[in-house]
């Protein structure tokens, strides 16, 4: 009898351990599913983030392993410029010196975060080659989907309250600066700015 109990006890422990391993594996797989499914939610038409709206808070991780929060109210009153790039995009490379200069000159109110997606090792090697290891650099398809990045290089400006101020395709220093200008003027884009100006003009004429 006691032998029976011992054997059953051993078998039960082994089975429980296997069960826990299976549960853990399932939980991990659910995590992977969330990563894959979440962007599909953002892709739905009409659901996209608009300028002037609160950007969703995303907890991300930089390639060097630090935690990085995008969105939400910032305690240090700094805005965030998200710059989406790819190692294979030549225009992106031409903007890097511009960003480097901005990172210094606008440091008092602006954090610049580089974002991309793809293979971690590839991006790390590229950063090393460009001597840009000091940059906060995140790989997140989710972030790109949230900001609705269509073409590269793309930039999005999130202010200190976590509101998406402006975003768009940026091909030059002037384009990036126009995002800052949009934030200062409180308009979402140069197109909207022109529309407002025209409206004002019409009112004046009337």
């Amino acid at each position: 009898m006691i032998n029976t109990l011992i054997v059953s006890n051993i078998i039960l422990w082994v089975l429980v351990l296997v069960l826990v391993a299976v549960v853990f594996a399932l939980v991990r797989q659910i995590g992977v599913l969330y990563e894959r499914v979440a962007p599909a939610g953002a892709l739905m038409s009409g659901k996209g983030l608009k300028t002037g709206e609160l950007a969703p808070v995303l907890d991300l991780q930089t390639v060097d392993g630090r935690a990085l929060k995008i969105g939400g109210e910032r305690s240090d009153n700094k805005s965030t410029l998200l710059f989406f790039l790819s190692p294979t995009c030549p225009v992106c490379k031409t903007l890097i010196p511009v960003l480097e200069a901005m990172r210094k000159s606008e440091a008092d109110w602006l954090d610049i975060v580089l974002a991309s997606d793809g293979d971690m090792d590839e991006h790390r090697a590229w950063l090393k080659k460009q001597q840009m290891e000091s940059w906060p650099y995140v790989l997140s398809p989710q972030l790109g989907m949230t900001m609705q990045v269509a073409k590269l290089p793309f930039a999005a400006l999130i202010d200190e309250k976590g509101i998406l101020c402006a975003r768009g395709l940026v091909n030059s220093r002037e384009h990036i600066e126009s995002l800052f200008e949009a934030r200062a003027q409180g308009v979402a884009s140069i197109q909207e700015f022109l529309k407002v100006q025209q409206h004002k003009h019409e009112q004046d004429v009337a």
Partner: protein
Amino acid sequence: MDPVIKVIICICMCMLFGVAAIHKLKAPAVFRAAMKDYQLIPSILLSIVSIVLIFLELLSVILVLVPSAQATGLLIMAALLLIYAGGISINLYRGRRDIDCGCNGPATTQALSWWLVARNLVFLGLVLLAVGPSIERALNWLDLFTIFFGVLVASGLYLGFNQLLAQAPRLAALRSAT
């Protein structure tokens, strides 16, 4: 209480606090940043408090492994668990859910939630259970077997629980999107 339960609790707690201390030693800046986010300690004291907390974690692990000092080590662990649960509760009351709990080192961020408080309180209960009186009896080979598998299963469940908690914000985001 049976010594097997006590040994399992002690080993699990040593693993928990040992891993926590190693994470903090590996990335002290991350730990300081997490503590700063809690907004409970004046920034001048941050580095001192962080050193004290890491020291207490390591000390408690060592003490629990020494049979004669076991109760002291367990009580230090209980105090640390209470301090962490208190810090999390205060920030939950303030509505600051979005800060990183600083529980898992730099690899994963985990938002604050009452689940974390509940987890700490369960651990606290287990630690206090182990401090309590236990029966003296010699451990046979089946007891060692139970201890070995008990520790493995408890660790696996803990990892699974943590993973679920870390994923909770994503599930919430998914729910609100549809």
